[in-house]
């Protein structure tokens, strides 16, 4: 089995505070991998590095055995990696439909086309409609994204992330701020949408993590202190001390 994402000796520092320290991580193709760790451990930063939003100070990042560190986010995206944001990050003045369609356009090969009518691209319509269904926002199709409720925006955020059909998906706290019921629905959705794809997810909700992940890595102070299947992690005393606390046991 080949690796989807691989980090080799990645470090990142801002000024003289180092946030990511010598991280080595491999996520296998088709694996659902969760990244957990205390607040400020560097999880989002790691996502920023992988997705090209930030440049690692040292080390290299490989996407399906190809070095992608140093590429711009859109170049990495075109190579099949897509991410969501911890803070909702959608196109606020555009309708839900248009939000999703924008996420579909590049992947369907229409790029910067200025000679095609966007409403008459069957494959774009089909794909957008499918995702709209998937994220359960059909009824809100024509509502500007900025006016959706928080939970709906989170769903849209996931929708945009997966719309391009990337086969490596990074989700940063997708269920934050959702109620239990909604969280469960979101987990089901994520499970379904990432079937056969590679998923790297950051979550603080342990039910989500343990319900979804094939493998878990724990990031503390910019270092991976443990990595393994959920049972191992749950039992790992270092993890309990640094992250889970007593409760989650």
């Amino acid at each position: 089995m080949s690796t989807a994402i691989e980090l080799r000796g990645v470090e990142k520092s801002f000024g003289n505070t180092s946030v990511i320290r010598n991280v080595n991580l491999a996520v296998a193709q088709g694996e659902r991998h969760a990244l957990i760790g205390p607040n400020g451990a560097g999880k989002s930063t790691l996502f920023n590095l992988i997705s090209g939003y930030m440049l690692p100070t040292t080390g290299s990042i490989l996407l399906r055995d190809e070095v992608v560190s140093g590429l711009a986010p859109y170049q990495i995206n075109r190579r099949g990696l897509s991410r969501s944001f911890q803070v909702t990050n959608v196109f606020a003045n555009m309708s839900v439909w248009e939000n999703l369609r924008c996420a579909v356009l590049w992947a369907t090969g229409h790029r910067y086309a200025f000679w095609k009518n966007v409403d008459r691209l069957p494959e774009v319509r089909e794909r957008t409609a499918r995702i709209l269904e998937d994220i359960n926002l059909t009824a809100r199709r024509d509502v500007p994204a900025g006016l959706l409720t928080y939970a709906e925006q989170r769903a849209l955020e996931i929708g945009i992330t997966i719309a391009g059909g990337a086969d490596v998906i990074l989700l940063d706290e997708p269920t934050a701020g959702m109620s239990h019921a909604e969280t469960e629905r979101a987990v089901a959705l994520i499970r379904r949408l990432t079937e056969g794809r590679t998923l790297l997810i950051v979550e603080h909700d342990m039910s989500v993590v343990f319900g979804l992940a094939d493998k878990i890595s724990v990031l503390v102070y910019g270092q991976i202190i443990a990595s393994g299947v959920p049972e191992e992690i749950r039992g790992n005393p270092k993890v309990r001390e640094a992250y889970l606390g007593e409760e989650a046991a």
Partner: protein
Amino acid sequence: MTETTSSVAPPYPTAAEKLKFYGLWVGAAVVLLLLPKLFSSGGSLTTFSLIGISIIFSLSYNILLGQTGMLSFGHAVYYGLGGFLVIHAINIIGANKLPIPLPLVPLIGGLTGLLFAVLLGWVSTQRSGTAFAMISLGVAELVASSALILRTFFGGEAGISANRTKVFRLFDWNFGPQIQIYYLVAAWTLIAVIAMYALTRTPLGRMCNAVRDNPERVQFVGYDPHVVRYLAFCFSGFFAGIAGALAAINFEIANSAYLGAVQSGTVLFATYIGGVGFFIGPIVGAIFVTILSLGLSDLTQVWQLYFGLIFIAVVLFAPGGITGLLMMHRPLLKAGTFGKVLPSYLIAFVPTLAMLIGLILGTEIIVYYAVHSGDDSHIKAFGVPFDAANRYVWAMAAILLVGGYWVARKTWTFVGHAWDDATSVAREKGIAA
């Protein structure tokens, strides 16, 4: 699969809707054709031509501001360079008897605008927001000042002129009379408007909106926002060039003012006042601002004051521009509740008008005393003659102003209530406001 699509995706336009859509364009064409028959004085033809030019220019500007979220202070650069090249082109065509008819010449302007947008755009569009605005300001000032230095090409303060009747003729149209110019402008306006509308319906057009809303996110759906901005900039330069070309053909002169800050400011005005959020916004703005700038100075001497006040008023009271104000009523019309607000409008209209009349009267009286005291006090403002030295007129102005304001304030709260009612009914009927 396709079944889900058809139920989930927005439906394709029905035949009736299509008919309506294409009918609109055909209707516009017919109106443009008939306009000179309805208003036949020389003055209106000039006005229409200028409006047409301004429409193209404003729409091209809105590709930047409204569609892609880029505030430019230097859009006139592409308009002006288009104009200059066209003047030179006309002279060259005329001198060498080249077989290029005048109706094709605007294309030269468009290509010039495009060329310069291609050259200057890459660095300018690297950033958005204030940085872009300031670069555009700097570039515009540079180009405008250089125009005064490169005298051979730009003709200095005086500019350069041409004679449009000296080019190759088709069908015996020499384009001397204004009516022929009007039709030339009208045809190009229609073409350009359709083209720019079509542009908004393309993948690029949609991505422009996305870049406007959230350039960061765009990067993560595979697009380079810089490229999107750059392409938008190029298109915008192209159409601005066409507008400049038509202006050059209309006036047969191009001078450095074409490139200058006033021109750039005017197009920003027109576009914003019309409403950047709607495709037709800039069209409305172009019509409004052109008529205002042509007509206001005939009506009153202190037109600049009114000009300023009108803009302040629009910015204050119609944040979505004139079009935004009108579009607010669409849900009401759809829900059939427009009737609920109409009476309140009528009630509010009277005192508001009184207040405005009082304001104008007062202003003109003050102007008379400040500027012309000693001259004949029977003056005219907005075509209405009155005696500025008459105490009764003073009293009337004061009463209209104060009383009008007082009553108007009350009536506007009516409007507010009526509006709330009407919208809530509309919302209950499921029509989003």
